[in-house]
């Protein structure tokens, strides 16, 4: 659009002019700044999304007797948070090994999904080969197949391989996702000009060097988002790790679940475990959430 933007007018002609311009351009309010009601609604929504997490902190910082007496906690955390966290760590749920397991599983899965999805995405987006169209359609179609339902045979396979209770049983099936392939295909189709690939080829690059030096750098923003998505997804995953890993070698969600099974009346302990397992991801979210948000937004527009 060639008309000057409202912020631009604000810079050159001052606030009043900007407001007037905003009113004029909005033709009845499409671009108008919303009123306080909108912000009030959003604030309420925000409180509803944040409160359960805060509630966990409140109970985790309390002691069991207080919780039993009064189900409505005060808004200010008590002083037992550290003590309760220590109890979680010292309980028999293998907290530290579970944390390490979760970090390993999520990191390895995220890295491998990014590498393989970028390779496949590059191939689908920019290379021509026989069967490309049908294969891509197949990839998209697999997104609709609920893989969770193959849980029994997958378990049989894993026990034949002797992987039950071992991390690779969780990592290997998650190493590649149809969503990832589709996502990178969509992104690279637009973000990577053919001229760049051709230039590299003319300069004598092999296919894999072209991928490494041309496609991979171009894919970086989308790859970062995909990594974040996959990381969150595998960190929060429960059913399959629960089935195949069990209590012997748990990831965090599986370990936290054990807290409830063994200490079911001690809510300050259980919710301290919840806080301990949620905190790392909330921190990741605070640092990188912006990318997660734009990621969902972009993926939705294109998907």
């Amino acid at each position, binding site marked *: 659009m060639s008309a000057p933007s409202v912020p631009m007018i604000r810079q050159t002609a001052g606030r009043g002019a900007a407001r007037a311009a905003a009113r004029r351009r909005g033709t*009845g309010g499409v*671009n*108008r*700044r*919303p009123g306080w009601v909108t912000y009030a609604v*959003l604030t309420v929504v925000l409180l509803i*999304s*944040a409160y359960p997490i805060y*509630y966990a902190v409140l*109970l985790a910082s309390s002691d069991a007797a207080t*919780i039993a007496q009064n*189900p*409505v906690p005060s808004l200010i955390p008590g002083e037992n948070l550290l003590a309760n966290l220590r109890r979680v760590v010292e309980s028999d749920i293998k907290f530290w090994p579970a944390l390490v397991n979760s970090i390993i599983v999520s990191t390895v899965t995220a890295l491998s999904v990014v590498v*393989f*999805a970028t*390779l496949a995405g590059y*191939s689908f987006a*920019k290379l*021509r*080969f026989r069967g490309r169209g049908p294969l891509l359609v197949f*990839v*998209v179609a*697999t997104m*609709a*197949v*609920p*893989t*969770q*339902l*193959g*849980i*029994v*045979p*997958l*378990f049989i396979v894993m026990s034949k391989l002797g992987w039950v209770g071992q991390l690779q049983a969780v990592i290997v099936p998650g190493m*590649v996702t149809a969503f990832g*392939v589709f996502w990178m295909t969509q992104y690279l*189709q637009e973000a990577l000009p053919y001229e760049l690939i051709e230039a590299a*080829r003319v300069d*004598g690059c092999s*296919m894999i060097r072209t991928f490494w030096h041309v496609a991979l750098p171009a894919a970086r923003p989308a790859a970062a988002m995909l990594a974040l998505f996959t990381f969150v997804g595998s960190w*929060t995953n*429960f*059913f399959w790790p629960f*089935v195949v890993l069990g209590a012997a070698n748990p990831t965090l*969600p599986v370990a*936290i679940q054990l807290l409830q*099974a063994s200490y*079911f009346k001690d809510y300050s302990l*259980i*919710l301290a475990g*919840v806080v301990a397992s*949620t905190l790392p991801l*909330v921190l990741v979210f605070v640092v990188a959430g912006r990318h*997660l*948000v734009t990621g*969902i*937004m972009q993926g*939705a527009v294109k*998907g």
Partner: protein
Amino acid sequence: MATTAPARRLPAPPPADPGPRAPRATLRQRLARWDVRLSPYLYVAPFFLVFAVAGLFPIVYTAYVSVHDWHLIGGQGEFVGLQNFVDVLQQPRFRTALRNTFSIFLLSSVPQVAMAIALAAVLDANLRAKTFWRMGVLLPYVVAPVAVSLIFSKMFADQSGLINALLAGVGVEPIRWHSDVLASHVAIASMVNFRWTGYNTLIALAAMQAVPRELYEAAVIDGAGRLRQFFSITVPMLRPTIIFIVITSTIGGLQIFDEPRMFDQMGLGGADRQWMTLTMYLYELGWGAQKSFGRASAVAWLLFLIIVLIGLVNFALTRRIASSGGKGGQR
């Protein structure tokens, strides 16, 4: 779809094709040609390999297991035909699980889609600090379902729960969240809604922002109010996205396991299996007392068929809903 658009040009091998059986093709050139031909397949191979092993094979193999006597530890037994399906269908627990799954699924996905679209409409305004609000809405998405369930099962505790205490504050009798069928479904659905509404909101919001603003301007000139604009432009233009949200939440919702499993410490779905879902039932058959992989697989296949069926019904329904309101919105 953009994905099926033909590639403009393939990155040609550097030397022009020297013709069939050209004697001059050096080893290097031949290697380069193989490189060009084979590389694309090599690059897409990892996906298909992993999917074949971890996705396709299990689903097909589930069918094989489901017609056999099969024990968790004992392994494959004899062929029993459809006996596992008959056994499962005759057990009253299967029907309970089916009812629960549907009830929880409807209680979670219907309000969720509605809330997501409404909330997206609110977020679609020209807000200050956009990213902040969007991040706030997405926050619950990073809390693991297990954690959400533990938090909510305490909030919905029968005696010492926050929700009942608040209800008592306004003079409502305490609700028996862990024994009443419907109440337990509402509590579990609220966990699902808590975690997924924000995610779906952002998907809907993204689609809303792609709606051409001229449509709204034209509607304003025609004298349409905000509500009218929402139902006559926004909703119809969002049709593909709504279908996407409905289908993904169907697949997820019908397989629900984490939340109901964690709703009490037994993990069996309540004393009367008030909130035991099909996936929980599948787990109980395979890894519980019966250890019958055959019956568990039968449940998996039944669930798969249900998901496909519901998917088709959803698709038809969403199409009708979205297009009947769309007289003014179609360009």
